[in-house]
């Protein structure tokens, strides 16, 4: 009898509080019925309990049946994409760290090769583990959101498909789009890592007779903590958009819209940071050549115009995307 109580409590401990007492009562009664059946046939109570409980099986599995929840983190629909993204992100992170540490080693006067190697191994391990964790978390999130219906609309094209939705001719340009996505994605991830870990590497490298004397930062180091997160978010949006272009072979209207929205968000963050962030080192020109007025003018001009250039580039790319969506709708 005590074994039944223990078995039932082992089952319900995995279940939500509100259903525990109900299931406890019901399951106990059912098990007792099954035991009664066996004992009335002449079996001892002890053997009957043993037989019934082994037939009911592992309490954990029974609890899973009651829970009726997905027993996997990432389902078969997203798994292939997940694998591709994990490999690429882990690779990009490893590459970014390698570049950062190589540059650091090459330009550092006091770092030993052994020390750098140990640091490299440690950073790669931590970086790759983190990258995998994040990608997994995002995919698991997508899987769960889909379950509660948030992402249901993304599937409209899958359900409402008709032959009319086929493009007029075979689309062959996809490969170049995907490579473009891959390049953009790798670039974004590497930039993101360098920005957040080795900001000092972005600078003008000053040499004196072949040896590095100083790196004059391009960015404003003093208020870095205020603009780096914003710039990171902007880059992250681009990275996800490029990631989609890279990972999904057949772009649908929805993925195209989704990418357009991501690019728009990225654009807003970029524009905000560039205009209000005060992200550049104003004194760069003075630090390179204190007496050159031309250089100072050039730097002032560049700071102002990088905003304009990026804004125009973004607008053009979004216009192209909008055109592609329109063309897709027509096809």
């Amino acid at each position, binding site marked *: 009898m005590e074994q039944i109580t223990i078995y039932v409590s082992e089952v319900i401990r995995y279940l939500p509080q509100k259903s525990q007492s109900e299931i406890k009562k019901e399951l106990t009664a059912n098990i007792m019925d099954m035991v009664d059946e066996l004992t009335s046939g002449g079996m001892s109570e002890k053997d009957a309990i043993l037989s019934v409980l082994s*037939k009911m099986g592992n309490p954990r599995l029974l609890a899973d049946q009651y829970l009726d929840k997905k027993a996997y983190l990432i389902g078969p629909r997203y798994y292939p994409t997940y694998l591709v993204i994990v490999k690429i992100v882990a690779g990009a992170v490893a590459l970014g760290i390698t570049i950062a540490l190589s540059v650091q080693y090459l330009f550092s006067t006091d770092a030993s090769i052994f020390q750098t190697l140990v640091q490299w191994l440690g950073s790669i391990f931590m970086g790759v583990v983190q990258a995998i964790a994040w990608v997994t978390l995002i995919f698991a999130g997508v899987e769960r959101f889909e379950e509660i219906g948030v992402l249901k609309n993304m599937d409209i094209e899958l359900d409402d498909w008709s032959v009319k939705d086929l493009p007029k001719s075979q689309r062959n340009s996809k490969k170049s789009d995907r490579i473009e996505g891959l390049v953009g994605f790798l670039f974004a991830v590497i930039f993101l890592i360098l920005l957040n870990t080795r900001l000092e590497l972005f600078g003008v490298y000053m040499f004196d007779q072949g040896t590095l004397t100083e790196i004059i930062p391009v960015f404003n180091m003093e208020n870095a903590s205020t603009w780096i997160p914003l710039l990171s978010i902007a880059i992250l949006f681009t990275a996800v958009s490029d990631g989609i272009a890279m990972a999904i072979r057949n772009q649908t209207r929805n993925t195209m819209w989704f990418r357009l929205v991501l690019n728009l968000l990225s654009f807003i963050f970029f524009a905000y940071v560039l205009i209000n962030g005060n992200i550049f080192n104003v004194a760069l020109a003075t630090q390179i050549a204190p007496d050159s007025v031309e250089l100072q003018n050039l730097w002032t001009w560049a700071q102002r115009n990088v905003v304009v250039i990026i804004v125009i580039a973004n607008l053009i790319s979004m216009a192209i995307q909008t055109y592609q969506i329109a063309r897709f709708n027509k096809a």
Partner: protein
Amino acid sequence: MADNKELLESLILELRRGTLILTVLSQLYTQEYGYSLIQKITGKGMNIDAGTLYPLLRRLEKQGLLDSSWDIYENRPRRYYKLNQQGEELLQQLTSEWNQLNQIISQCLIREE
């Protein structure tokens, strides 16, 4: 050969899994509690695991196909399940679907020479 037997078992299991809900619903025109339902179903020649049936009953109730109530007057309190209006309608639809399927598959299984 052992592999073949295992494969057969897993295929049979899969085949039966699809018919489980239809079987359970069909036996609930009158009210039953967990264990009585198992006996009723096994009595008709269909094997069903208690560990599968008990959670399934709760799930079908949650989906709005069954009504349940506790009977506390017996010497052991039991939870009884019974088809409700929606459950009956759905069962009828499932039944006609099953009959059609049965015909089609029977046709398919006739070996053409």
